């Protein structure tokens, strides 16, 4: 489902003496439907960069990144947008939303974007928020005022609202208490069982061990860091 072939990325800092920083080099990996792969490696090894490249958020200089039959590296912006809307989900560590929009709508939005009716989308959103223990009295408020943990859970609810065939998870269990951590892990397991291909970054080793089928050490692709 997710296929990376000979992928490389450099940053050129034009305003800092045109310094060129190689971040990752010659990455090849593939994730099958129903499989969950963990990216590991020390901080700064390029785990998050690689995730962002797969999502099309960072530009890839060489190689190909195929999600289904779309190559993110070559795709037109609108193809990437369509892919993100329908196929590829991304749960980041930080919630980025328009101020003023109620939590329920924030969570329902990915479903509305793929054409689900407002009623059905909000029902699904409500179920997820309930599962993640967000009190109902907060649903009509904007999540911008919530605590860090609450924002993280809203973010996860939003990420899991639509059943994407492929998902990227960046520290989905960080800053969660035991109960909610358990809910998130079971959401991941359900997704795997339904055939979702997942790439994740988990610092929580127990969580990693429980949901991940394989680990890939990104340090191996990091120029200058590789052993």
């Amino acid at each position: 489902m997710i296929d990376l072939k000979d992928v490389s990325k450099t940053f050129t800092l034009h305003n800092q003496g045109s310094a060129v920083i190689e971040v990752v080099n010659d990455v090849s990996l593939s994730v099958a439907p129903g499989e969950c792969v963990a990216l590991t490696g020390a901080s700064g090894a390029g785990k998050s960069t690689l995730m962002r490249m797969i999502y099309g958020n960072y530009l890839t200089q060489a190689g190909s990144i195929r999600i289904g039959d779309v190559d993110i590296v070559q795709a037109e912006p609108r193809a990437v947008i369509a892919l993100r809307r329908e196929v590829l989900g991304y749960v980041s560590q930080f919630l980025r939303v328009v101020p003023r929009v109620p939590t329920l709508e924030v969570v329902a939005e990915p479903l509305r974007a793929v054409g689900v009716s407002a009623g059905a989308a909000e029902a699904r959103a409500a179920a997820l928020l309930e599962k993640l223990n967000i009190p109902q009295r907060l649903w009509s408020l904007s999540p911008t005022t919530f605590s860090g943990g609450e924002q993280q859970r809203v973010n996860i609810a939003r990420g899991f609202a639509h059943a994407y065939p492929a998902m990227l998870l960046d520290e989905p269990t960080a800053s969660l208490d035991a109960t909610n951590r358990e809910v998130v892990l079971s959401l991941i397991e359900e997704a795997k069982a339904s055939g979702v291909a997942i790439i994740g970054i988990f610092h929580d080793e127990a969580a990693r061990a429980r949901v991940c089928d394989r680990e890939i050490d990104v340090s191996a692709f990091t120029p200058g860091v590789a052993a």
Partner: protein
Amino acid sequence: MSADLSPLLSVKGISKYYGAHIGCADVSFDLYPGEVMGIVGESGSGKSTLLNCMAGHLAPDAGEVVFDTRADGPKDTVTMSEPERRMLGRTDWAFVHQHARDGLRMGVSAGGNVGERLMAVGERHYGDIRGKATDWLGRVEIDADRIDDRPTTFSGGMQQRLQIARNLVTGPRLVFMDEPTGGLDVSVQARLLDLLRGLVRDMGLSAIIVTHDLAVVRLLADRLMVMKSGRVVESGLTDQVLDDPQHAYSQLLVSSVLQV
């Protein structure tokens, strides 16, 4: 997926010179139905010149602006007759000015402002026009009992929302926006952006937004073009251009924004 649709707007090699000075040079891109594109750059980068060339307010010196018209399919709006282009301006196109007073009739009531486009395309039933105006005031969060008040009695944010209602009442397919949140308080900006986002999604609008505010494009635009000295120096997915800018100028632009 919408990959098989044809572009709503196809801009080909648009150039505009002011004497020896470049307004904008050789700009080309396609905009597809439902897409929102942001154009960013500093003052004098040519983004407003480009917008005005596309919207028919300025005649470009070279290039085509091909719009997929409802009646006749793709047509170059630069060479089409003026009546035809002005008709587009009242029906399928909308233009939201930075200063609401440029886009509103300040001596006419809110209802009359919203109703004007309807009357311009031939609606002649007062009750219907008023009904639609009332509905649109609601959609842009203006109380219905302000319908007979003049925009001079409105706050800046309300004026801007009224301008948007006035523009969208005829169900356009393409909206040009010139710094739509410029000059508004930050809290008012957020409300306006939220409103615009909802309208764009619900109406399936395509939009071209010129702004120097990167936060605006991050929230509203799918795609981004960065302009400098009249030329496009970088374009791509909005979050990609903002998070991983490639061109020196884009990097400078992004790094110049204060983080909050």
